[in-house]
């Protein structure tokens, strides 16, 4: 596939990895967090940690929207789906996320609830138009990448006056979560990082400019990178060079797709159709101020939180689950006593095991097969 295969060349990857090994400063440790689940998955799948020198540790960040969706919101979505008048449409990734008592949208569907998997927000609107007697609720989750498609469908639903369609909005924002991780790193509540691999497709939407405040406030470099293995290796090399030079700048490795200003059209739609929530709960990270979006007043008629009585109960995670400490880089997946026993991808208990992009699921699928002693796990 053009623009994919070229960036998966194994020989080139080994060459870049050798370059990284040649440039790391002897005796220095480099702790880099890849914020995105997409990067976490690629790092595990392509064995990138095995190519890197042992002085570089990759810490898997919270950038997996399925993983950080709190249980209370999952429970609310399940309650909506169980209403006899409601058809709940959502992306496939969301259907397996466990709420409390192990229930998920998939198990609700098995129990008779009308839950439908869609590829695109437009498919959800089509269901509403085809079935005017049903209340079709689109369960929207995701970072800035996934937000413009939700904005587009809200605009279209309003234009067409589609009264039986609404959106249960759970969109979250990347920069506040990055800031929270770095602030925790400064206070000791998270591992102190030397740099961040910044998001690939979130940055197509928001651009690279929003990370400038973060690099300035926390003095850590951010390198925006694509999701292919060579993209990630090049970003690591760029981070190593910044650390060695004592720089903390925003750099863009993914220039074939990401620009400094991002997608201005999408940003304008998001600004018009959504508003900032005062605070929002992140699974594993707790309540973060101004870290999520709600539907703005002109579109309130299409807000499922206004149309239906949605409970705002906060449900606590299993106390034995270490997702919170793993997302902060303080523990590794294998150090959780639920890992691989009670908690597996088939029966996930914690957020990080839910999606293939979660740190625990990536370690379960790939990382645990690595040879012991090659590099830190």
């Amino acid at each position, binding site marked *: 596939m053009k*623009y994919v295969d*070229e960036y998966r060349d194994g020989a080139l990857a*080994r060459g870049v990895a050798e370059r990284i090994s040649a440039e790391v400063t002897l005796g220095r440790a480099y702790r880099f967090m890849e914020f995105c689940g*997409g990067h976490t998955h690629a790092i595990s799948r392509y064995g990138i940690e095995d190519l890197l020198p042992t002085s570089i540790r990759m810490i898997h960040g919270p950038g997996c*929207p399925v993983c950080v969706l709190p249980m209370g919101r999952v429970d609310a979505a399940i309650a909506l789906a169980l209403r006899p008048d409601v058809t709940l449409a959502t992306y496939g990734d969301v259907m397996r996320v466990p709420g409390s008592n192990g229930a998920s949208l998939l198990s609700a569907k098995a129990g008779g609830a009308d839950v439908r998997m869609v*590829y*695109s927000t437009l498919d959800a609107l089509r269901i509403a138009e085809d079935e005017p007697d049903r209340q079709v609720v689109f369960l929207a989750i995701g970072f800035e*990448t996934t937000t413009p498609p939700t904005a587009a469908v809200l605009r279209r639903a309003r234009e067409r006056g589609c009264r039986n369609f609404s959106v249960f909005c759970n969109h979250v924002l990347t920069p506040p979560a990055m800031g929270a991780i770095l602030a925790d790193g400064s206070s000791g509540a998270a591992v102190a990082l030397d740099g961040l691999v910044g998001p690939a497709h979130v940055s197509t939407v928001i651009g690279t400019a929003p990370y400038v405040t973060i690099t300035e406030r926390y003095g850590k470099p951010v390198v925006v990178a694509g999701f292919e293995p060579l993209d990630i290796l090049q970003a690591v090399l760029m981070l190593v060079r910044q650390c060695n030079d004592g720089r903390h700048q925003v750099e863009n490795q993914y220039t074939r797709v990401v620009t400094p200003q991002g*997608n201005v059209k999408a940003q304008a739609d998001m600004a018009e159709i959504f508003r900032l929530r005062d605070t929002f709960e992140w699974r594993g990270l707790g309540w973060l101020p101004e870290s999520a979006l709600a539907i703005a007043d002109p579109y309130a008629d299409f807000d499922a939180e206004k149309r239906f009585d949605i409970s705002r109960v906060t449900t606590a995670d299993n106390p034995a689950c270490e997702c919170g400490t793993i997302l902060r880089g303080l523990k590794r997946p294998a150090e959780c006593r639920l890992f691989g026993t009670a908690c597996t991808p088939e029966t996930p208990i914690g957020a990080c095991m839910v999606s293939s992009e979660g740190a625990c699921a990536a370690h379960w699928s790939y990382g645990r097969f690595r040879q012991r002693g090659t590099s830190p796990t």
Partner: protein
Amino acid sequence: MCLAVPARVTALLPDGMAKVSLDGVLKEVSLAFVDEVAVGDYVVIHVGYALAKVDAREAEETLSLLREAARA
């Protein structure tokens, strides 16, 4: 979740839609968020929407930087 794939535009359709080819698999996607797309361009697709155009020159530039790093 934020995965997005590069696809080649094969036809422009009414209502701001386009037909794209993902290595031979054809899909209809929305061009609501990208400007001046022509047949033959590559766009990055996420959940049925094109989010950005792929800049062919930058793509080649990245590869030459990678080759340079691997050679040095």
